[in-house]
């Protein structure tokens, strides 16, 4: 039997990043992926003959440092592509266009306010910047490196100066709604700017405490919050990671569904020694590194009998209900949105912050939203290979769609939600229905099943203050190590969280390599 230094569960982007780093440092690495291809939530697959789409559709802040380390450019991916504008769609064709620090379509007061807003938000975001590619200190640690990381935050805060520091602490805990109302007039602008603080979370503009922090956090990433779709899109990222990993000597196996993590028991305690696949095959390794979400990893793959009861309870209580559904449309031609030349940005449909709030209210109580809000992208504009020549793919993140629908997700309930979503798009792109040749709607429950992510959650587990930084996913497992010696985490459930960033995979590899 082959013996490996490390087995990585899951070939999502984090699993691949971790694998590539380990292999580049001389480790023998096997990646076991249950699906037929690599990429996880970033994997593209055919949803209609000739049309492909992935769950994640834009790459907003994949780390340049990781891309450089792993030489992803030579495998076809360059994160330094031009950012795409974010466009808040208006019914009358009066759109708001946000292009970096440029703002079009809003009144002069808003334009001036936007300049000030960007400046202070970026200043604040810088405080959080040192976190992305760092392992978080342990609570109560007296370790020098740990304290230094904390010190770094303190120092950054101090450098803001007294007034700005107070302002940072005030702003970081505001509901998105208050921040926007304080700064802007235009309703579409407010809704569009708050979007990145809410996307993927169980939060709406009025939710307290986390939304602005989440927004700042995204702004603090290497791309400063700008969204881009590199040439080749998400596909290019995944295939370059796969290429880099394989070139470094990583062995990748698909259709390899890990049923459990093997734990050896002795008088010395426990240690993870390998995995058993669904077909009964066992593979051994010195370490097992899981990019599956924390609940799956601990409850299903390890088994609670190997964990302390309090720890297990914290894992069980992780909030993992996803609220984002996916709509994929196969289109016979490029859709036209009223008042837009080219739909080549991120298009947000959220007429005002109440619209977001009300959609959330429906979902919060287990109902499908009567008027969903959404983000639309046309991946085929960036990666022509996902659709036949001249035809297009529309990809939408639809919020808020509950994981647990009252009465359950029947086919009829899913179809109804899908049609409702298309109806709303049709208000902005009136000819869209004539152009549709195929469609797919994935509820969080579908994503959970098809992509093996508990709750179909964007970040594997909610990204909120109590599940962030050194609390992510929970103490006892927040430094990529786990209570079981030899078992590590490297997925979105770990710091710095979800999105196609690579941080978790990178940081886990650093911890393992020491």
């Amino acid at each position: 039997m082959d013996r490996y230094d490390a087995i990585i569960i899951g070939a999502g982007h984090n699993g691949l990043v971790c694998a590539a780093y380990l292999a580049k440092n001389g480790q023998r690495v096997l990646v076991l992926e249950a699906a037929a291809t690599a990429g996880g939530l970033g994997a593209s697959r055919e949803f209609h003959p000739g049309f492909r789409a992935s769950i994640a559709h834009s790459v907003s802040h994949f780390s340049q440092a990781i891309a450089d380390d792993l030489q992803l450019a030579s495998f076809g991916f360059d994160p330094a592509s031009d950012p795409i504008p974010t466009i808040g769609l208006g019914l009358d064709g009066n759109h708001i266009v946000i292009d970096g620090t440029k703002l079009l379509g809003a009144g002069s007061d808003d334009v001036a306010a936007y300049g000030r807003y960007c400046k202070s938000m970026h200043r604040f975001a810088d405080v959080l910047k040192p976190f992305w590619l760092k392992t978080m200190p342990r609570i109560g640690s007296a370790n020098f490196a740990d304290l230094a990381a904390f010190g770094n935050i303190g120092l950054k805060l101090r450098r803001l100066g007294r007034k700005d520091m107070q302002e940072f602490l005030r702003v970081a805990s505001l509901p998105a709604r208050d921040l926007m109302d304080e700064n802007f007039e235009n309703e579409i602008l407010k809704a569009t700017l708050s979007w990145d603080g809410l996307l993927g979370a169980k939060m709406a503009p009025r939710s307290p405490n986390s939304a602005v922090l989440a927004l700042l956090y995204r702004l603090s990433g290497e791309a400063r919050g700008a969204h881009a779709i590199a040439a080749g899109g998400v596909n290019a990222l995944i295939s370059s990671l796969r290429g880099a990993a394989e070139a470094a000597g990583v062995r990748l196996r698909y259709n390899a569904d890990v049923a459990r993590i093997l734990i050896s028991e002795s008088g010395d305690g426990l240690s993870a020694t390998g995995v058993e696949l669904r077909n009964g095959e066992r593979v051994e390794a010195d370490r097992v590194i899981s990019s599956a979400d924390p609940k799956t990893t601990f409850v299903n793959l390890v088994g609670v009998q190997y964990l302390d009861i309090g720890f297990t309870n914290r894992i069980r209580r992780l909030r993992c209900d996803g609220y984002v559904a996916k709509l994929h449309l196969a289109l016979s031609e490029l859709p036209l949105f009223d008042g837009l030349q080219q739909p080549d940005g991120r298009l947000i449909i959220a007429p005002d912050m109440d619209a977001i709030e009300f959609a959330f209210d429906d979902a919060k109580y287990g109902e499908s939203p009567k008027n969903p809000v959404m983000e639309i992208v046309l991946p085929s504009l960036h990666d022509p290979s996902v659709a036949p020549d001249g035809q297009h793919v529309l990809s939408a993140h639809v919020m808020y769609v509950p994981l647990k629908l009252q009465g359950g997700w029947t086919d009829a309930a899913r179809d109804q939600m899908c049609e409702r979503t298309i109806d709303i798009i049709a208000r902005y792109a009136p000819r869209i229905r004539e152009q549709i040749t195929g469609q797919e709607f994935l509820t969080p429950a579908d994503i959970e099943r098809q992509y093996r992510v508990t709750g179909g959650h964007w970040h594997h587990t909610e990204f909120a203050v109590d599940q962030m930084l050194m609390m992510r996913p929970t103490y006892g497992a927040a430094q990529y190590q786990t209570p079981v010696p030899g078992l590590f985490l490297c997925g979105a459930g770990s710091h710095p969280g979800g999105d196609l960033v690579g941080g978790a995979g990178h940081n886990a590899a650093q911890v393992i390599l020491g």
Partner: protein
Amino acid sequence: MNSADPYAGERLKLSPFHPRQRELNIRDAWSAWNGYKFADYYYDAEYEYFCVRNTCGTYDICPMQKYEIRGNDAEAMLNRMVTRDVKKIKVNRVAYCVWCTDEGRMIDDGTIFRLANDRFMLTCGSPCNAWLEKSAFGFDEVQVADITDRLAALSLQGPTSFAVLQAMGLAGTESAKPFDILTLPFHDDTLMVSRTGFTGDLGYELWIKPDLALRLWDELYAAGGDYGIQPYGEAATNMARLEAAFIMPAMEFNEALRTVNFEHDQTPFELNLGWLVDFKKPHFSGRRALLEEKRRGPKYTLTKLDIEGNKPADGSYIYSNRRCTQEVGYVTSAMWSPAVKANIALAMIETKYLQGELWVEIYYEKELRQYSRVVKCTQKQKPFWTPARARATPPPNY
């Protein structure tokens, strides 16, 4: 007027033995335990204590919490929860156990009865439904049921307890060793007898369906008339258990889940219960923390003290010298022990001071005046009261 009792929910529950106990509780000395009306004493605490030590007594343990844990994963679930190795408990045996938080702080102690390969009963002093629910999460085949109200239980303790069971005609009790469980026929039903108890002496606990409880009581008291049987309450129990050096919640230990202040709870090592922690077991909840605690040594150690004089040392501080300049611990329980004829106490003492002298400052009152006295303590390794009959099989038939 509506005859329904509007305060029904706040009234104390009555144990199935209550009708008899009410008659016998001539002092009306009731308090409460887990929502049950419960006797502090019936006639006189000292008298009841002497019965337990010289003849026998019955103590109502209906309010004690009882849980049935069954299913193919029951053993694994309990084994991860408690520090002892549950695999080693054979069918029809009982084991004293403790369970801890992840940090190794003691949540509670109790007994596990193995009734079948896949069926256990756990008993403990305080409700632990929530912890059991957390402990069972993730196991596919385990059901936990609170059977406290479905099983009546009476503790029969003292030197003549075996003789009473014999007189009742309960065959088989002669061969029951300490911690054995017997299931005996009783009026077309069954009576479970375990050779267990909380007095450190010969004794049994009797487990029966509530509707047969009074029948059991009556037969026990009919048979026990010649053997000095007498009900005893909480006060006498507390005396007997202290002589046996058994720990009590809210005296020797503070249940971890109800402890607010940092480390005002205890570890099993602090309570001298290291022997219950089986590190040969590859995993149990709190193992990592306890291993560290063992390596470091417990900060405090529960210590058995024989104290000069006859003034009980309740609530006293312990010092390392006669001048009382260095405080090293505190007394958790104390009494003048009639059976041992000694002034005994349990005390939590900082482990590092156990090598040296121990002095206790005792306060006492005489006709409204407070006095204090500093006396020397001697550490005892064994429980104060350990009669051979408690372990003999068959036990003596007085």
